[in-house]
């Protein structure tokens, strides 16, 4: 019995500690900390600043991608640091929360943004964390705009999650069409990380479409933190695959490509939007690997944007490091840039910082960004019918546009 008492005391102690912390944590949000109020209107804080939450991973597997996505937003914020809402000019402040690429850290990261009183959230790179954070935004009545989270599950069942990118079923279909047109592929080898819903979702869609068209697939999943992919690649050779589809995260992609290069793999590799990264490009450089990725944006799509961001990357060394050490523009960066402007459009359309107004204004917003026209459908997904397919020019170490695919 005494221990129960002990427990109670312990809990209350921890609680009081937490409450102290709560006070100090709360004070940073300014304004309305200790007052109870309805959750719909608490976003409005501190005078002339509007806060936009950046819900992105900067550590973990998706860290590199998350950083590149943030670069787009940061650049956009440099270019357009203010916004006029309801006839008043506000400074836009980006508020970051690292979701660590894991779905168990995502809810608290999301909560941090909610707690800091942001008006709108952008992100995340990686669908899993978006889905984990989603309900927190949903509860708080805070709208989130997914930038490159392509898994269908992100927006389904969540009224407050929107996104500006295409979905995985579309992406998989595009890649299947491409594989069939370009390589007359009949056999495909699909490789993804075990338990990663992004990988497995794309693989499943690819399989469904590909086998639906009469193709044949072999599927494999590797455990997290695997480094040895030679066996898998050899297996692809031995089953006589015409293409290898590996929609994996950047860290794995670089290894797969390096190992494919070492074994002189002749089968073309197909990748999804995650592979559109300069790290991947660097891995393929100088090898004979044929690499094709589907993506949201191709450098050259908007010269003004390209030049501007490159200039910024070259003068800001931190930004350069976050971009992976060179000034190749990742599609996710372009998407992050567009997402920022979509967010501004939403705020303008809402005419106030009231979360309810933002929620009702968001679905109607349209915007034409560097990656194309953006609008939302009933579930909150982007109306998009275009994907770029890029190939790696291994001699130059750059991406070359292969084709532009539209939904068929």
């Amino acid at each position, binding site marked *: 019995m005494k221990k129960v008492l002990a427990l109670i005391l312990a809990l209350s102690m921890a609680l009081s500690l937490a409450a102290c912390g709560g006070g100090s944590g709360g004070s940073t949000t300014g304004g309305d900390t200790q007052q109870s109020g309805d959750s719909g209107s608490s976003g409005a804080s501190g005078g002339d600043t509007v806060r936009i939450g950046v819900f992105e991973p900067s550590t973990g597997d998706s860290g590199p991608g998350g950083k590149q996505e943030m670069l787009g937003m940061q650049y956009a914020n440099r270019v357009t640091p203010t916004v006029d809402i309801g006839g008043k000019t506000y400074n836009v402040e980006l508020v970051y929360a690292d979701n660590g690429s894991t779905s168990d850290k995502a809810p608290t990261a999301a909560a941090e943004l909610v707690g800091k009183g942001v008006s709108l959230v952008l992100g995340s790179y990686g669908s899993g964390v978006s889905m984990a954070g989603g309900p927190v935004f949903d509860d708080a009545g805070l709208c989130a705009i997914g930038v490159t989270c392509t898994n269908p599950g992100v927006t389904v069942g969540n009224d407050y999650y929107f996104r500006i990118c295409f979905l995985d079923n579309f992406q998989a279909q595009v890649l299947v069409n491409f594989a069939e047109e370009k390589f007359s592929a009949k056999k495909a080898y699909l490789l993804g990380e075990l338990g990663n819903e992004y990988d497995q979702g794309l693989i499943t869609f690819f399989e469904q479409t590909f086998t639906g068209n009469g193709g044949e697939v072999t599927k494999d999943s590797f455990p997290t*933190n695997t*480094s040895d992919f030679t066996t898998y690649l050899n297996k692809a050779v031995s089953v006589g695959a015409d293409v290898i589809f590996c929609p994996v995260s950047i860290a794995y992609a670089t290894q797969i490509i390096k*190992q494919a290069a070492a074994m002189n793999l002749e089968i073309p590799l197909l990748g999804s939007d995650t592979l559109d990264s300069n790290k991947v490009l660097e891995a393929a450089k100088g090898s004979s690997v044929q690499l094709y990725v589907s993506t949201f944006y191709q450098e050259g799509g908007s010269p003004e944007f390209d030049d501007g961001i490159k200039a910024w990357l070259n003068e800001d060394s931190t930004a350069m490091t976050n971009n992976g050490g060179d000034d190749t523009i990742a599609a996710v960066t372009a998407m992050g840039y567009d997402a920022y402007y979509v967010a501004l459009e939403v705020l303008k359309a809402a005419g106030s910082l009231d979360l309810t107004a933002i929620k009702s204004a968001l679905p109607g917003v349209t915007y034409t960004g560097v990656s194309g026209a953006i609008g939302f459908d009933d579930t909150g997904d982007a109306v998009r019918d275009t994907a770029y397919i890029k190939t790696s020019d291994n001699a130059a170490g750059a991406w070359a546009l292969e084709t532009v695919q539209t939904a068929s």
Partner: protein
Amino acid sequence: MQYAISILLSGISLGGQYALIAIGYTMVYGILRLINFAHGDVFMVAGLMMVYLSAALPLGLALPLVLLLTVLLGFLIERAAYKPLRTAPRMSVMISAIGVSYLLQNLATYATGGLPQMYPEIPGLSATVTIAGTSVKWATVVTPFLVVALVIALTQLINHTKTGMAMRAVAKDFETAQLIGIRLNAVISVTFVIGSFLAGIGSMLYFTNYQSVVPLSGALPGLRAFVAAVFGGIGSVPGAVVGAFIIGLSESVIKGSNWSVFSDAFTFALLIVILVVKPTGLFGEKVTDKV
């Protein structure tokens, strides 16, 4: 056929790399009865150091320096995290090991910013060679021979030098060894030095093969190598090597089959079966409790 050879090759090379890590586990366990969870991370840090040092220094200088620093790291970890806990219960030491592993991973994340780092090409090892139609890196081919050579050297050391004798004495009986004047701390340090040295070599072979270093790179090879050490009978160097090759080969075979989902699970299932059937592993000595 070609496929079978490729699986065999990658299995043997994996096995060799695991063996180099497993020896570190098995020697430390033999002496301290401690699962040195940080060992896999030492392996990863060796990889990262190579990445950074080779960018700044010529390879001829970077290679020995990496080995030296790895050895130093192993030595320091033992002094800082395990030595103060020598009289503490085993669980505390094991937790300290988990803590060190956690710290190394987080430091690596901090240093790299979570970005995968490309391992430099090592001339000779990185070149490819074609065996029976399968093209592989020289590192793959060299690994098993290098492992056997190192293990022979190590067994010579353990069986025929004074230090080796002291190591065996400490492994047999901690307290008595101290009583007869063996400098315990020196022996333990030597063990960590040898273990880290082999992990350093292992990391060179491993990352030459697989090229990219991330903060969690050490976790999986570390775990597998540990399983290999247990499998072979923890405390026994030849056991660790045999165990590592078995684990490496079986991993390769499972990956090549239709059950690749279970390649990790299989490793552990194998471990559990061994532990239950023969709890001290293939070559382990039987220990009976005295009442």
